[in-house]
Every structure is written in structure tokens, then in C-alpha cells.
């Protein structure tokens, strides 16, 4: 079969199955079956062996552990402490709770590697609080959803771990490269909140005294040092990303169980179960997506794409925009992890051909996929936030669109100026580059 025919079968079958609402993981697997059956050189058992190979990877173990750490932090009441700290720092700006929401997301992103844990934990606290103070529900939900995407951009990040593991890029390097865009995203979003607050006259908190600030800092300090432990540990080679994720679990269990005494023997199994189940669902998808990606590679579809595009003579920047656009579109429809496996591996030779730095390629991909977390029809953070705010997705779209504009500017900046993200890893850990 030709690469064209195979792509037609794979993407055609996948598309049809998705539209009739077959779960993404099953749609990816089912789409592969006809190709395995039709080609004499292949045996269907490859589908299973490819899945097995993708699961039997020590690096992916970090995914359930980081989810578990984030859920333990939520259960330990750390989010409340972070909210108090953010209130003492930025609560006095116009649109106080909006800024607090963004800042807590940023701080929480430094602890958790997952945006969905971020949206669920912060949303359940902040959305009711914002509604109570007279913020529009749609704005409260939109800012919660959009700010939660920092979870995958600011280290630690589950998406970067998957990316690094799959495409052999240094995870420490990726983590460091995510710091600047993550921080800028928070600044951009807080500027948006400021504009909203001016136009809609949102309430302001009284400025906290220095003493109150120090108190709030003291209450949150154990949570605030987590990113230093995790990211520092990985970047300076003390432990592997998987080990770092276990350190995060043990640390948050100690905080929740012994220091803050919020998690008892009854709550612990429930947190274990919830984290394991969510991780399993996402990771099961990795298996079928890997088989799908394997078939594309077997029929040299990525190479075909590179050849076609090479005919147009695309340069570094055009390719950057092309990569971003592809991830933005696929991110609307499927989960970020299978998107990385399928599209990332297709686009990798293209990025390499135009001489794009692997870390630059990865960060463009991760930021573009972060949009997918809040864009319908399949934006998990948006769905979670809407459920928490008890509002329909349609009613939030306008505000989400407005908040995404500065994020889009950030993405364009990252594409145009790779040094913006590369200087930090280059400076701290030149050996990773």
C-alpha cells in the first residue's frame, strides 16, 4: 500500500469513529486493524507488541506519580494556602480575585505537572469565590480554565516528560525552557484581567500589610519550595524525572498526612484510586496512539510529508507556524498525549530538516497543545471549569477567546525568537543542549 492509501484508511477510519463518539483510545486502535489485516507483511499482533513497548517505559511512570502528587496537594489543602499567599501578593490590584486565580495557577503549576488537576483544584475554590464577589460566571470560568494551562508549560510538566521520553530530548532542558514562557503567560493573563476589571468595575481587596504578607508566605512556604525540589533535582542530576515524581508524592503525602494533618487513612486510598484511574485512561491512549504512529512511520508517511513541503522550500519560521497550526488543530479534537505521539513523530523530521532546535520544536508543540486544553469540542480544562461553574460551554467561549489572544501573541513570540526559551537551559545546563 502507498503512504497516501494508508493515511486515508488510518485518518479516515479514526475520523469517522471519533464523530460517532467512540472513545479516542479505541478509535486509534480500531483504525489500525484494517491496515494490519490488509498488508501481508504485517501481523495484527504488532498492535499489541507496540502497545506493550510503549507501556514498558520507566519514564512514563512519572505520569501517575505527578498526578498523585497534585491530587495529594489538593487534598492537603495546599491550594487554600496558595490562594491566601496570592491574595497577600496581588489581591490589591483591580480585579483582585482574577489575579489571585492566575497567580495560584502559576504556583500550582510549579508543583503539579497536569493542567486538569490544576483546573479541578483551583476551580472548585476560586469559581464560587469569584461568583460570590460579583464577577461574571463566564469570566470566572474562562480565567480558571485558561490559567490552568500553565500546568503543562511551567515545570514539572507531564507533556514535556512524554515528549522528552518519546523523542529523546533532555527533560531537564525542556523543563528549563518552559520557565520563561510560563511566567510570561501569567503576566499576559494578569494584564488581561486588569483590562477586564477596568471595563467591568470588578472589586479590589485592601492591600495586605507586610506582616500579613509574611504570614501568608510562612503558611505556604512548604508548598512553594516543591518546584525547587522537583525541578532542581532533575536539572542538577540528583534524580531521574520518575524518581522526582515519587519524591513529589512522598513530600506531598508527608505535608498532607503529618504536617497539615488533612489526609487520613480513609482519604488516602481514594486519592490513590482517582489518580491511578485518570493516569491509566490517558496512558492507555498512549499505547494505541503508538501503534497508530508506528504504522504511519512504517509506511513512511512523515517522510512523504517532508518531501512535499520541501518542494515549497519552507524556512525555519514558516515551519514553526506550520507546526503550531497543526498542533492547534489536532489539540481541539484529541488529548495532548496521543497528539504528541502521532503528530510529534510526523513533524519531527520536518523540524530537523529546517534545523529547528529540538527543544524549540517541543516548546512550540507543548504551548500549542496547551490551547487545546481550553478549546472546544475537546478541551478538558474548559469542560472541568464549566462543570464547576455550572455553566454551558457555549456561554464561556467568548471570554475564553478574549483571554486566548495574549496567549496567541506569546506563541508567536516563541516561534519568532527561539533564544527567548533557549537561553535559560543554555546558561544553566549547557550539557543538555
Amino acid at each position, binding site marked *: 500500500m502507498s503512504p497516501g492509501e494508508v493515511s486515508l484508511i488510518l485518518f479516515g477510519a479514526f475520523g469517522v*469513529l*471519533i*464523530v*460517532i*463518539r*467512540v*472513545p*479516542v*483510545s*479505541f*478509535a486509534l*486502535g*480500531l483504525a489500525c*486493524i484494517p491496515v494490519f489485516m490488509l498488508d501481508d507483511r504485517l501481523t*495484527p*499482533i504488532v*498492535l*499489541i*507488541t507496540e*502497545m*506493550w513497548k510503549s*507501556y*514498558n*517505559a*520507566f519514564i*512514563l*511512570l512519572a505520569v*501517575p*506519580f505527578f498526578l*498523585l502528587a497534585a491530587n495529594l496537594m489538593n487534598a492537603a489543602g495546599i491550594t487554600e494556602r496558595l490562594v491566601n499567599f496570592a491574595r497577600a501578593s496581588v489581591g490589591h490590584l483591580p480585579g483582585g480575585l482574577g489575579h489571585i486565580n492566575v497567580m495560584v495557577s502559576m504556583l500550582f503549576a510549579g508543583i503539579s505537572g497536569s493542567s486538569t488537576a490544576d483546573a479541578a483544584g483551583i476551580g472548585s475554590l476560586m469559581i464560587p469565590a469569584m461568583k460570590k464577589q460579583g464577577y461574571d460566571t463566564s469570566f470566572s470560568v474562562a480565567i480558571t480554565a485558561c490559567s490552568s494551562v500553565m500546568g503543562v508549560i511551567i515545570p514539572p510538566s507531564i507533556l514535556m516528560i512524554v515528549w522528552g521520553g518519546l523523542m529523546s530530548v533532555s527533560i531537564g532542558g525542556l523543563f528549563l525552557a518552559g520557565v520563561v514562557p510560563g511566567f510570561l503567560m501569567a503576566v499576559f493573563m494578569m494584564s488581561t484581567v486588569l483590562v477586564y476589571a477596568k471595563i467591568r468595575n470588578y472589586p479590589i481587596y485592601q492591600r495586605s500589610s507586610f506582616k500579613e504578607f509574611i504570614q501568608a508566605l510562612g503558611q505556604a512556604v512548604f508548598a512553594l519550595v516543591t518546584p525547587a525540589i522537583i525541578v532542581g533535582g532533575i536539572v542538577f542530576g540528583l*534524580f531521574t524525572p*520518575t*524518581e522526582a515524581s*515519587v*519524591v513529589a*508524592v*512522598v513530600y506531598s503525602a508527608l505535608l498532607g498526612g503529618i504536617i497539615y494533618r488533612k489526609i487520613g487513612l480513609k482519604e488516602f*486510598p481514594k486519592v*490513590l*484510586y482517582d*489518580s*491511578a*484511574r485518570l*493516569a*491509566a*485512561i*490517558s*496512558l*492507555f*491512549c498512549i*499505547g494505541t496512539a503508538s501503534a497508530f504512529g508506528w504504522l504511519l512511520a512504517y509506511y513512511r508517511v512523515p517522510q512523504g510529508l517532508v518531501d512535499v513541503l520541501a518542494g515549497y522550500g519552507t524556512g525555519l519560521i514558516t515551519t514553526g507556524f506550520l507546526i503550531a497550526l497543526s498542533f492547534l488543530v489536532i489539540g481541539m*479534537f*484529541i*488529548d495532548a498525549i496521543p497528539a504528541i505521539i502521532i503528530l510529534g513523530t510526523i513533524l519531527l523530521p520536518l523540524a530537523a530538516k529546517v534545523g529547528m532546535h529540538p527543544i524549540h520544536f517541543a516548546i512550540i508543540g507543548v504551548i500549542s497543545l496547551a490551547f487545546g486544553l481550553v478549546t472546544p*469540542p*475537546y478541551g*478538558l480544562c474548559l469542560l472541568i471549569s464549566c462543570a464547576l461553574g455550572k455553566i454551558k460551554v457555549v456561554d464561556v467561549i467568548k471570554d475564553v477567546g478574549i483571554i486566548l489572544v495574549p496567549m496567541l501573541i506569546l506563541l508567536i513570540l516563541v516561534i519568532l525568537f527561539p533564544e527567548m526559551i533557549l537561553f535559560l537551559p543554555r546558561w544553566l545546563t549547557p550539557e543538555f543542549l
Partner: protein
Amino acid sequence: MKSLLVGYYRLLKWLLTLLMGLIIIPVGLQILSRYTGIIPRYIWTEEVARFCFVWIIMIGAMIAVREDTHFDVDLLPHPKTKRSEGVRNLVVHISIGMMALFFAWYGFQFAKFGFIQNSEMSGINMATIYISFPVAGISWLLFLIEKVADDIKLIKAHDQEVAE
């Protein structure tokens, strides 16, 4: 039948929680042994963690079929009648069922390879891990019986309403 399925589902939930708790131990041991020397450097830790992990993924995927929590995409407008909802669900469940049959059949072939292999570090027979694939296929089929029965009930309920 129903109570058997509920019991099996509870067992899987319990197993998933247990495995998630257990898997922290080998990775934790790995760090402890490297930095403290309290315990020797075991070489089996990473492998045992990976094998538990594969079982976690497969058990989670089994549970998610019963709970209908595998990620799907909401593109089409929602079905207006019970009948069309029942038909839509039936098509989805049959598709999952095809994948389940595939897993049960080819997964079993895959597990047969495992009988003649032992793992490199810990010497565990590989069939004990490979078997998770056919077990997933069979578990999906079991849970789907219940699902398909519900779908047919939904379609019939609609016909009854129309008749009345």
C-alpha cells in the same frame, strides 16, 4: 449476573488502588539505596515498577469501559429521542466490543510468547504481565454485555412510549 459484574468491578477498583500504593515502594527504594546505603542497591526495582505500571494501565482501562470514562469527543448534536440515543450508544459499544475481541484473541497469542520468557532482572515469567492484554479484552466483553442490554432497553422503552 449483574451482582457478579458489580463484584468483579469492585475487585478491579481495589486492585488498582493497591497497585498504585505498592508501586511507590520500588521507586522509593531505588532513591533510598542510591543516597543512603541503608539498603543494598537492588536491580529489580525498576523492572517490578514497570510491570506493576502495565497492570495499572490495563486495569484502569477495564474500569473506564464500565464507568464510560474513556475520553471521547462531543462533536455531533445530542440525540433527541431515547431511541436514537440507544442506537448511538449501541454502535459505540459494538465498536469497543470489536476491539475487545481483538485484544482477547491476539492478546492470548501474545501471552503465549510470554510463557517461554523470563524477565532479565527479576526473573518473573513474562506471561504474568502479558496476560493483562487478553484479560482486558475479556473484561471489556463482560462489562459490554451489561452496556448492550441497557442500550436495547433504551431503544425498547422508546418504542413502548411511542406505542402508548
